[in-house]
């Protein structure tokens, strides 16, 4: 007998039907979904084609891991990790990456353009032709330009689709400065704090660091490659230590050598105390400081007030541990990193807290060296240049001047929204949304709903009926990341790579790529704008790669392009950094000039009021932000979210595990199930993101769990405009 397994493949369960059951309610395989859809007339029956493997990049989160799509009979059967994607995803694909097939074959997908017929949010739609829907969008855009101003249209965009720049291009060509992107819901304060110190936002060399301190960046659950991989101790290498600070016992805590449930909002006190010990006990790297930094004297003076004893009372970490960690950290340096990570910001002092992190790394010389912070490299691609039409009388960004350092392209969501609600200094009346889920991602959902209410027109481009789409006037179905040819993108890092996407299957239903949609809108907005989009995607890709045509073959041949496999250490040695002084700025002259604290000054977070709890947010490995909770495969892993509460508090409140509770903040109230767990500080509660949705177009999660966005107050960092996610207090009562 040749091989007993071969048989199995050929008769693999494509359309298994239980001989006893006449129908099967569980829809499992992709083919089944397709058959079901074909029956409803939404698509034609899948046509047999050859089996092929297609290289592409994952689009389930912003990490862009390498993927091979195994396509069988014209259907994506499985997504496998691309082993060639070495420097970044290293042949891994997480649960979300693996669930990508269910993004394409999702009965809840947007199938054709929809135009609202009922009230906003009522969920009454009619199917429209692309022609009609696109006309409606541009007519409304033109009306708003006429009636108010071009700046009265806002464009909100997602990240990670490789084609959001076309959306921003349309915004610019249409003539509005008001584009909003994710950084102020994410890491803009991190970028600000590190750039103010190093002139760039470096990447920690997790793989080679002997000593890592992580605070709040839950890398075992908030997966980021390669950090999440490298965080785990490997055999062979020197013994490494991971010290982890988080008010929650996360899976990272389970993997850490030491976990401290730090009092939320006091990370800066901990860091300043580490700096204090390192400076007062002379553990810093003298030569490095001398050669590479400015402002050490001021720092040494400033840091005296922040002793470990003082910090201990602030952050609930014993002074002797702070001292010991400072010693261990300095001893391991320069192969030691205070990991800044990629994560959302939690407090209004986040930029200064990031500054403190950067300073700590700098004084032990953990910069541009093995195991320290590494400046990012990139592989330069040729940009698409275009000449945007000029319009007179277009004002500045609405949120301009709202915070010290505002990104021109990204804006600041909380500042922008407040001004838009006040029409200060001008009204915002139209909203174009590209896959950003405003109602789920931006804190204080009630305010976002207010904002949407005041719009004359809202158009959302997405793949499913997100909450934001649910409240729109026109909804345009985009092709998913597995159905698109996307331009190459440089993923910068210590070892940069170029990634891209190619269609693994044809776009299903009437869905179209964002590029096509932008071209069509541009065409309708006039020849001048249309001209800036006058090329095919193929041409665009060749244009981007014209300096390095070999990238093209690498991308289509093995799914990825990279030049190095190991970081280059000491790359910037002796070179001028992109700071004012050209050196690492321990003391920031730039900040002093702007009237900001030139050295991080600590201020205690607000005390948790009696009978209230601090609401914490945080990631887990199954969902990406507000976008994947409805995915059928991932939904199996986590069908609803719960509110974590410490057992001692539950006893006090006489609440039982699993009962429904009401969570009330100043801005909202949500109901969800209680989970009593030792895994959280008694003064805090936590809930996972992505539930409590308003849309009824997400059939797995409609009406399930609670929304954190509905509860979180919109406070923000005055330097970067970044939302502060942990400054909300809630009351818990039985529901």
């Amino acid at each position: 007998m040749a091989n007993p397994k071969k048989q199995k493949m050929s008769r693999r369960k494509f359309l298994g039907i239980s001989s006893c059951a006449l129908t099967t309610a569980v829809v499992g395989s992709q083919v089944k979904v397709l058959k079901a859809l074909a029956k409803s007339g939404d698509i034609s029956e899948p046509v047999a084609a050859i089996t092929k493997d297609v290289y592409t990049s994952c689009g389930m989160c912003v990490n862009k891991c390498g993927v091979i799509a195994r396509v069988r009979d014209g259907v994506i059967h499985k997504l496998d990790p691309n082993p060639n994607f070495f420097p970044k995803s290293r042949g891994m694909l997480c649960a979300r990456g693996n669930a990508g097939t269910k993004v394409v074959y999702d009965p809840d997908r947007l199938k054709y353009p929809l135009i609202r017929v009922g009230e906003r949010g009522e969920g009454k739609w009619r199917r429209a032709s692309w022609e009609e829907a696109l006309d409606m969008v541009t007519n409304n855009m033109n009306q708003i330009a006429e009636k108010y101003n071009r700046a009265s249209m806002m464009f909100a965009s997602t990240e990670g689709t490789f084609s959001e720049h076309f959306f921003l291009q349309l915004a610019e060509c249409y003539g509005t400065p008001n584009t909003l992107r994710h950084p102020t819901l994410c890491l803009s304060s991190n970028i600000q704090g590190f750039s103010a110190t190093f002139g760039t936002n470096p990447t920690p060399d997790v793989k080679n660091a002997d000593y890592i301190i992580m605070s709040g960046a839950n890398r075992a659950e908030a997966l980021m490659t390669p950090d999440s991989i490298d965080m785990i101790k490997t055999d062979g290498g020197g013994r490494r230590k991971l010290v982890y600070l988080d008010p929650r016992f996360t899976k990272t805590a389970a993997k850490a050598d030491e976990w401290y449930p730090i009092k939320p909002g006091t990370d800066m006190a901990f860091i300043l105390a580490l700096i204090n010990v390192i400076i007062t006990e002379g553990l810093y790297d003298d030569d490095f400081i001398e050669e590479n930094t400015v402002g050490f004297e001021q720092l040494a003076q400033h840091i005296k007030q922040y002793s470990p004893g003082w910090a201990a009372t602030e952050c609930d970490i014993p002074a002797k541990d702070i001292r010991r960690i400072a010693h261990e950290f300095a001893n391991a340096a320069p192969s030691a990193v205070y990991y800044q990570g990629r994560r959302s910001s939690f407090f209004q002092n986040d930029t200064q807290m990031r500054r403190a992190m950067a300073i700590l790394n700098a004084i032990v010389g953990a910069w541009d060296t093995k195991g320290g912070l590494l400046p990012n490299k990139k592989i330069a691609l040729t940009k698409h240049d275009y000449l945007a039409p000029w319009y007179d009388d277009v004002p500045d960004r609405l949120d301009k001047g709202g915070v010290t350092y505002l990104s021109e392209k990204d804006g600041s969501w909380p500042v922008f929204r407040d001004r838009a609600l006040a029409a200060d200094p001008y009204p915002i009346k139209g909203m174009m949304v590209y896959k950003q889920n405003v109602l789920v991602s931006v804190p204080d959902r009630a305010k976002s709903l207010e904002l949407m209410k005041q719009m004359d027109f809202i158009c959302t481009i997405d793949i499913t009926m997100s909450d934001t789409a649910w409240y729109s006037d026109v909804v345009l179905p985009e092709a998913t990341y597995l159905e698109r040819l996307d331009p190459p993108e440089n993923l910068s890092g210590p070892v940069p790579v170029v990634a891209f996407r190619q269609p693994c299957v044809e776009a299903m239903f009437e869905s179209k790529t964002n590029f096509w949609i932008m071209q069509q809108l541009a065409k309708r907005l006039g020849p001048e704008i249309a001209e800036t989009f006058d090329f095919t995607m193929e041409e665009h890709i060749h244009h981007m790669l014209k300096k390095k045509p070999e990238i093209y073959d690498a991308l289509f041949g093995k799914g990825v392009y990279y030049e190095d496999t190991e970081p280059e250490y000491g790359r910037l040695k002796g070179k001028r950094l992109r700071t004012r002084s050209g050196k690492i700025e321990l003391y920031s002259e730039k900040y002093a000039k702007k009237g900001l604290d030139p050295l991080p000054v600590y201020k205690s977070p607000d005390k948790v009021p009696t009978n209230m709890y601090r609401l914490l947010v945080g990631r887990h490995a199954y969902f990406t932000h507000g976008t994947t909770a409805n995915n059928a495969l991932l939904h199996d892993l986590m069908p609803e979210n719960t509110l974590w509460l410490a057992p001692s508090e539950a006893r006090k409140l006489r609440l039982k595990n699993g009962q429904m509770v009401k969570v009330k903040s100043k801005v909202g109230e949500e109901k969800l199930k209680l989970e009593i767990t030792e895994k959280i500080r008694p003064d805090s509660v936590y809930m996972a993101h992505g539930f409590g949705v308003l849309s009824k177009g997400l059939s797995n999660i409609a009406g399930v769990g609670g929304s954190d966005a509905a509860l979180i107050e919109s406070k923000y960092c005055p330097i970067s405009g970044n939302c502060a996610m942990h400054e909300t207090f809630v009351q818990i009562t039985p529901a």
Partner: protein
Amino acid sequence: MSAFKNRPKLFVWMAILLLGMAAGAAGVIHVLIVGHAQSYNVTREIPWGLLIATYVFLVVSSTGLCLISSLGHVFGMKQFEFIGKRAILLAILTLLCGFGAIGMEINHPIRMGIYTILSPNFSSAIWWMGTLYGVYLMFLCAEFYFLMKGMHKGAFTMGVLGFTAAVSAHSNLGAVFGLLEARPFWHGSFLPIYFIVSALVSGCALIGMIVYFNHKKSGAPMPLKYADFMDTLGRLQILTLMTLVFFVVWKIIPGIYGHPPEKYEATMSMISGPFAFNFWFFEVLMGLVIPLCILFPKKTRTPTGVMFAGLSSTIGIFFMRYDLVIIGQLVSMREGTAELVNGLLQYTPSLSELGITIGAICTCLFLYTVAERLLPLDPEEH
């Protein structure tokens, strides 16, 4: 409808049975339409539910009837001879309805028919149990035929064979559970023996009821001969019940002594956990204590008393079967498999499962009631 004329009780009885059968039919139809997974509350952790318990209950009844009736026509105890036909008939019916219940539980009864023959696995207790029960059924049918024809020699031969098959098949049913090392609550040589003993209790209980109602329906007072039989049966029932008490006690003590892993948790679920009510009320009180209290005093060991003792212990025995099947699966095979309540898995039968169980039992009683009226089941007077 003439059969029901002047017999309102029979009418009510048949109406109740037909209702029960309708519930069973509804359950069966539901399963055929939406499939097993949607109809039954069995899970990957507790794959065997109420229907398996019902099957066990019915085949234990069948075995018990066969064993007790064989006291007459196999072991020559004259007093027991007259119940032969009825006991064997009911043994056949309970067995068939038991097969019906398990046929609804397993997903592919047709495949079973084919592959147990084409691809038998001799190391499988289920294979042996199924095969032996098949053989047992044939012997029962032959025995019943010979009894009806008054062919005593044939009936005796078939009775011996049936007795042998009943004992082997039934101990194999015990082995289906007892051979599972993965389930400490079941594992061991206890269950095969226990099943035989408990079958005797079932047999006595059911025969007591058959004899009582058979005479009740005629309206005439019970002849002394039968009243004497009922007294003997009552005393035999005391013996079997006392033996069963002994078994129950010795099932529990090793289950808690020294807290043997998994066995302890399972046993405790019965003593003070979610199955405590089933155990103390149904198994102990109805199954053992009440029957013994009725049967011990001479004053209450009347035909009516024996009937009530039998009814009570039959209800108790049903719960013994159910508890045995479910409790054996309550302890999770690993941490974190599903939502555990106090460390145990959970199972509550679905409506379909309940319907089919009621249907199976009612069908059995219905067929017996009909047969009772159509077939000459009274013993020939010598």
